[in-house]
């Protein structure tokens, strides 16, 4: 039988989704369903003097109104679950509804439960809140300055943590360096914008004490765990179901107050409750991404050798530390400062800063795009300073394949890779030399072409649980799978991860079908229901296939080991005399003596004739904890033309060479690259969440936040190299975030390259026509 591993078969998720039969949280209806709406603060920072909910309570169809005072002692504050050690972290708990003080526009103030969505929405407008506005501060650097408004007691200068990273002796390297360059980089705040807003439906069975919570979740087991803490309900009485999820990009990792409040309301009113945010609410109340102000430096010698890198980063946390918030700009960011290079001396300080803004947490790439951006911008800036081609500087400093596995100065050990191979392949595909010649010619004609490189290495496949514990992550990072074989030989697999668009219902079935030699139709993958699936930690950090796939493979192999013993017994031979062939175990060289998978599934399940010591039944579970992270890498190169009259950028070509190890389903891998790259291009060219000085979110709807559209985006030329990882049974790395991690700096470098002749050395993202035009004017380059 041909193997399915490596085959770009059509996705099994799709039939329901293309016919409108998908089941998303807001699609769920229950008998007696009521609807919740949350009143949110219109102020960035204010004291709550008084709340009068009497008019709302009197409204026909309103069942209950809850304020922060009403739920005190009943709904605990929302905790932060990632507290990196060694950085004096302070994470003030986030009250599920504000009691005395609101700290961002969108902070929850009251909850209404009503007979219909419309009544609930109308009723929140009838709640009269008397606010005493306080000063706002939205910029993470400004928030640390003397005199800045203070958000929380006991957190002077709004600094929630000061996280150091160091390897080698960076200060000495800079002191003795022939060349050094520095940049101030603003990595703007972004809105994740999963097209499905968040939603929750809760139902409480008073008789059994069982709470069922349907939630838009990338990690239902984490939601169960944290909801248990917030609601004070034992974990085994909470069932979290995450059905089809309409995109997450990190925004559906955190446990928010809103899901817990929905559950609380269902218990309080004795009827099921649904809460669904609308987009404007999503932009205020769902986490944001990035928000760094960075001071970064690189040093080296005139021959292009990089010897040191230093950073000082102000990372906005928002008003409160979100579930994984503090881990993003530290562990997932600062430890990646070596990029794809041998940089012996690294020193960084990351300040986690509270501002009167929506909390910041993981957004596609989560810390790694910011790291790649600053490293790759510095490499280009350094190359310019030493008058070398940026491709040559990369080649010179890249970690050679022969040195893998390689431990970088920040302490991480990169698992495998041929970085030069990906770079050279990308240079060949874009025909680098030819483009440089074309660029030169165009410049003579007054046209500004640019070419940008981005050689990234990222950390994913999170990760060893021991490391998770050591870095303050409030959970494990292993994964789990149960492979259950039915008497008729069909297979169901229950997984702890929760894919939501990444296609593991298909790729995981490919692995299992291969292992057992059964048609893929006989395999079903089940995810998202904590009652059915074993403890897992969710889908994020490009970990699902690397870690979850590892668990799945091990469980499947366990099943196979068992049926080998059974086959040997039934065929009256020893284990070693058997070989797996064409979907069954047969006696070596004797195809007539064979038991198929279906035969063995039946015989194991009926257990009429089991060998001594072998239990009846046929299922296996596995918990897989990888020995290390995986480190996908690659080089992206794009070419652009910048219209210096208008500041508009046109991407001419975008070539990627990614290496995520072997592909289970190449079609799906490529799809992940496309989506990731476009998200990074959106970040580079147009996306930005803007607050005014009063802390009002000016980009509060899709009218104002520039989500990339089909007509604005280029075609991606996606290519690969294939280097297996040694740390998991499939040899796979992750590919969900690589595109985003690589592309924002790739495009930025190309534009800066185009405008180099004008003396422009850096423009902050997003490089909108207005910003590029302003930079050109400022450079006074004389466009003609």
């Amino acid at each position, binding site marked *: 039988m041909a193997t399915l591993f490596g085959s770009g078969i*059509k*996705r099994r*998720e*799709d*039939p*329901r*989704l*293309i*016919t*409108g*039969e*998908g*089941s*998303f949280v*807001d*699609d769920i*209806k229950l008998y007696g369903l009521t609807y919740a709406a949350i009143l949110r603060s219109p102020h960035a920072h204010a004291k709550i003097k008084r709340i009068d909910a009497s008019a709302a309570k009197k409204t026909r169809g309103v069942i209950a109104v809850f304020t922060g005072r009403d739920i005190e002692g009943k709904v605990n504050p929302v905790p932060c679950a990632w507290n990196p050690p060694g950085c004096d972290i302070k994470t003030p708990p986030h009250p599920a509804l504000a009691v005395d003080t609101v700290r961002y526009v969108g902070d929850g103030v009251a909850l209404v439960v009503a007979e219909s*969505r*419309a009544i609930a929405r109308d009723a929140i407008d009838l709640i009269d809140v008397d606010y005493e506005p306080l000063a706002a501060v939205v910029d993470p650097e400004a928030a640390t300055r003397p005199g800045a408004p203070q958000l929380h007691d006991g957190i002077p200068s709004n600094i929630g943590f000061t996280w150091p990273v160091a390897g080698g002796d960076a200060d000495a390297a800079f002191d003795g360096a022939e060349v050094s360059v520095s940049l101030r980089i603003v990595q703007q705040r972004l809105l994740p*914008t*999963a*097209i*499905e*807003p968040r939603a929750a439906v809760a139902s409480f069975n008073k008789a059994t004490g069982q709470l069922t919570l349907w939630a838009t979740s990338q990690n239902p087991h984490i939601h169960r765990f944290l909801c248990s803490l917030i609601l004070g309900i034992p974990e085994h009485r909470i069932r979290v179901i995450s059905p*089809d*999820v*309409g*995109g997450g*990009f990190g925004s559906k990792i955190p446990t928010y107050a809103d899901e817990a409040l929905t559950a609380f309301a269902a218990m309080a009113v004795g009827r099921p409750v649904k809460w669904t945010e*609308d*987009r*404007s609410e999503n932009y205020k109340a769902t986490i944001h991404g990035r928000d760094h102000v960075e001071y970064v430096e690189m040093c080296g010698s005139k021959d292009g050798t990089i010897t040191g890198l230093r950073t000082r980063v102000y990372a906005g946390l928002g008003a409160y530390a979100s579930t994984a918030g503090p881990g993003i700009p530290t562990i997932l960011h600062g430890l990646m400062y070596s990029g794809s290079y041998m940089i012996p001396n690294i020193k960084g300080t990351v300040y986690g800063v509270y501002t009167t803004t929506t909390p910041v947490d993981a957004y596609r790439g989560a810390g790694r795009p910011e790291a790649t951006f600053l490293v790759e911008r510095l490499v280009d800036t350094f190359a310019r300073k030493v008058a070398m081609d940026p491709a040559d500087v990369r080649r010179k400093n890249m970690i050679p394949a022969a040195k893998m596995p390689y431990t970088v100065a920040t302490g991480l050990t990169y698992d495998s890779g041929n970085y030069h191979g990906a770079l050279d392949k990308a240079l060949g595909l874009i025909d680098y030399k030819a483009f440089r010649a074309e660029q030169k010619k165009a410049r003579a004609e007054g046209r500004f072409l640019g070419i940008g490189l981005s050689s990234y290495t990222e950390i994913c496949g999170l990760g060893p649980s021991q490391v998770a514990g050591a870095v303050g992550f409030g959970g494990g990072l292993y994964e789990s799978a149960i492979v259950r074989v039915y008497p008729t030989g069909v297979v169901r697999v229950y997984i702890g991860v929760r894919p*939501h*668009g*990444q*296609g593991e219902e298909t790729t995981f079935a490919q692995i299992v079908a291969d292992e057992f030699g059964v048609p893929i139709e006989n395999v079903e993958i089940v995810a998202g229901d904590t009652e059915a699936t074993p403890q897992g930690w969710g889908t994020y950090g490009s970990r699902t296939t690397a870690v979850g796939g590892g668990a799945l493979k091990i469980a499947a192999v366990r099943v196979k080991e068992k049926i080998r013993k059974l086959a040997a017994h039934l065929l009256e031979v020893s284990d070693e005399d058997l070989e797996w062939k064409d979907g069954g175990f047969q006696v070596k060289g004797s195809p007539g003596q064979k038991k198929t998978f279906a035969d063995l599934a039946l015989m194991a399940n009926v257990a009429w004739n089991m060998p001594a010591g072998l239990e009846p039944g046929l299922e296996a579970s596995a918990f897989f904890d990888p020995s290390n992270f995986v480190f996908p890498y690659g080089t992206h190169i794009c070419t652009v033309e910048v219209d210096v009259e208008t500041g508009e950028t046109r991407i001419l070509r975008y070539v990627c060479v990614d290496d995520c190890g072997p592909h289970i389903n190449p*079609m*799906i891998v*490529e*799809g992940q690259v*496309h*989506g*990731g*790259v*476009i*998200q990074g291009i959106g970040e580079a060219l147009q996306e930005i969440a803007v607050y005014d000085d009063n802390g009002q979110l000016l980009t509060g*709807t*899709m*009218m104002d936040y520039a*989500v*990339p*559209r*089909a*007509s*604005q*985006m280029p*075609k*991606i030329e996606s290519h690969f190299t294939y280097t297996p990882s040694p740390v998991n049974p499939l040899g796979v790395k992750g590919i969900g975030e690589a*595109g985003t991690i690589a592309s924002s700096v790739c495009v930025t470098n190309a534009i800066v390259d185009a405008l180099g002749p004008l003396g422009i050395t850096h423009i902050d993202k997003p490089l909108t026509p207005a910003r590029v035009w302003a930079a050109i004017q400022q450079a006074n380059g004389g466009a003609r």
Partner: protein
Amino acid sequence: MKRTIEFFVNGEARSVDVEPRALLVHVLRDDLDLTGTHIGCDTSQCGACTVHIDGRAVKSCNVLAVQAAGRRVTTIEGLAKNGKLHALQNAFWEKHGLQCGFCTPGMIMTAADLLASNPAPSEDEIRHALEGNYCRCTGYQNIVAAVKAAAGA
């Protein structure tokens, strides 16, 4: 005060009592259980709620249910005929034109309108026709490929 509207939904005559302010998308989802039509924004940008009225694509969050009275509404659930997928549904499946699938119904309904008026669109024409439909997963490339494939089917 609620009003009764009568219209055809996916070929069936339906009668629903609606508030005058009710949006078509809410009536489809909440009253008629046609939850394949999704809501992704509140400012008519995202296009997840796209359905057909009398064969033309409209954003059903931008239409009052009462405006649909007497008209033919087609949702994603009504696109397949006699158990046979529409060419666009097949093409989205074949070309990996969806990932999370949330934008997909609206995307397909918009594309169906495009192909009805322009059976052989260029890549540029496809991209422009879809600019009122947001997808955050696919980067659009395979969606464009799917529409092209469906046009050729």
